[in-house]
């Protein structure tokens, strides 16, 4: 057991100060704005919960929120499934392992706007590799800047490209920690491949999958830069996710009140869903 020692606070103090400085002060600012109305000239008037009401009723917010949930649900489903399959297919030892790991981690280390720019170049209709192959080799009309469906699919594929490796690496870490004896015992017990997956590999991956789902949820729910650079939220508003909408309101239109109220609602939703995921996924471990 850990010792009770209030000295712990001393150790945590620097972290506490730094994070509090970064989190609390801006959060206060946001709360402050969210309950006030401004007509410029740095004059502010009490507005109560008016902005919250306005945001919660606005169709624009509902649409962005809906797109956000759809996006997150889709990439979670694809990335988790694909990640597990790829992790299971990875070699466990040998020369290729470090090569696979390094290549797979590479997309995650590319600045997010470069990811967006890279996919933009990749998908240009006539001079991008994907765009050219789609339009000219396969004969499938594809132009992301005009076709909302194409834009959606591209944003999803880009996120899959960018982040599936996170799930792969996490699951892989779980898989390599299974001793050989488990596989040997299963062979001797006559277990099918499915049983090996269901009773040996999946239980071992469960913990890391929880981390993977949580991280992917948080990050995909907060995603901004990549789709913004790729599509700018368009065509129309078709790929305007929550963050993009928020930045449009806050920095584009400088509507500080509504933006602040939306920030708080947004943050609250992220927190709530993260908590929900965490509770649901760890429920069985408690008993």
């Amino acid at each position, binding site marked *: 057991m850990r010792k009770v020692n209030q000295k712990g606070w001393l150790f945590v103090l620097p972290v506490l100060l730094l994070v509090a400085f970064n989190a609390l002060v801006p959060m206060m600012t946001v709360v402050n704005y969210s309950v006030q109305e401004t007509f410029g000239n740095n004059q502010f008037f009490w507005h109560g919960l008016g902005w919250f009401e306005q945001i919660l009723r606005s169709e624009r917010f509902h649409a962005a929120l809906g797109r956000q949930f759809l996006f997150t649900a889709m990439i979670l489903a694809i990335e988790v499934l694909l990640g597990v399959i790829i992790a299971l297919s990875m070699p466990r030892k040998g020369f290729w392992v470090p090569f696979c790991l390094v290549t797979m981690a590479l997309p995650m280390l590319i600045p997010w706007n470069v990811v967006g720019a890279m996919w933009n170049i990749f998908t240009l209709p006539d001079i991008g590799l994907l765009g050219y192959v789609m339009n000219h080799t396969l004969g499938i009309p594809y132009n992301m800047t005009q076709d909302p469906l194409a834009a959606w699919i591209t944003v999803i594929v880009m996120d899959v490209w960018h982040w599936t490796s996170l799930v792969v690496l996490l699951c892989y870490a779980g898989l390599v920690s299974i001793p050989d004896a488990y596989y040997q015992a299963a062979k*001797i*017990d006559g277990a099918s491949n499915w049983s090996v997956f269901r009773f040996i590999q999946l239980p071992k991956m469960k913990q890391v999958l929880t981390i993977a789902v949580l991280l992917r949820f948080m990050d995909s729910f907060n995603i901004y830069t990549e789709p913004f650079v790729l599509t700018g939220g368009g065509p129309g508003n078709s790929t305007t996710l929550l963050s993009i909408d928020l930045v449009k309101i806050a920095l584009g239109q400088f509507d500080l009140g509504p933006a602040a109220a939306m920030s708080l609602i947004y943050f609250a939703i992220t927190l709530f869903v993260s908590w929900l995921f965490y509770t649901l996924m760890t429920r069985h471990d408690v008993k």
Partner: protein
Amino acid sequence: MAKITLDKLRHSYMPDPKGPQDYAIKEINLDWQDGGAYALLGPSGCGKSTLLNIISGLLQPSEGRILFDGNDVSALPPDRRNIAQVFQFPVIYDTMTVYDNLAFPLRNRGVDEAKVTARVTEIAEMLEVTEMLRVRAANLSPDNKQKISMGRGLVRDDVNVIMFDEPLTVIDPHLKWKLRSKLKELHQKVGVTMIYVTHDQTEALTFADQVVVMQDGEVVQIGTPVDLFERPAHTFVGHFIGSPGMNVLPAEVKDGAAFFSGQRIALEGAIIPGAGLHQIGVRPEFVSLAATGVPATVRKIMDLGRHAVVEALAGETRINAIVEGTLPGPGEAVHLSFRPDQTRLYRDGWIASEKERAA
């Protein structure tokens, strides 16, 4: 249940083995009798786990065949050989209950549920885990986990052999003894062939009827615990079994007699003619302090209560003797005498003196 035959078995982990040094298993021919309790004893890295994995089918041997009751099973996968194996670390399926763990091998083979229940209940009783059947296996203690992995082997009534790969490594010392006697008891009750791999001589000697001693990928001796102790066929066996191990002295052979530092040493019988590096082997139990014999100086005395181990130096050679009664002091000059019928000649490691026929 079956008799297991290993026929000219060789295995190398290298794709293209050049010489004997590249082989983890150097030609083994061996019969395991049906229903026997065997121990496979040897130091770490001697090839015993490799041999075990070849028998179970987890590993394909480079050369040679494995026969179960005369049928060649070399090409069969583990699940079709009807064997069971218990590993060093308890392997259990964490998410299942103890009951489901025990039922797993049967269900995988499509045994009907009524029979599964009957077998699991029976085996659980034998292992004394009946009251744990509904518990999630992840919550068990290591010794109980190991019992469950044994149980998964025992639950099938068609197993040819159960193999144990150092199964007591992670078990607390005071539970080791209990689990080992449980194992012995199960062997007598079920009568299935068991092969027990270990590097611990006590475990091997107490469990097995027959002990197979391996070194460097070779079987050096097969015999009952008494055989191994009394007449080691190889200096390695003499050294590895017994505490302290057999004394091995450099020897010269002239005119059909053996000499150690110029003194003639009486042996158990005639020397088998041949040439090579000669050594004399005698266990400390059969070395005594006497008025005449090999002169030596006492270096160290370890008093173990009932007896003492006296370590003496004869020239450059260290000789242990187990002595009861009055002890010499360190530095004292003594004479050591060897009991002739327990003193043997070894040539290049292998025994080279004949056992005197009982008159």
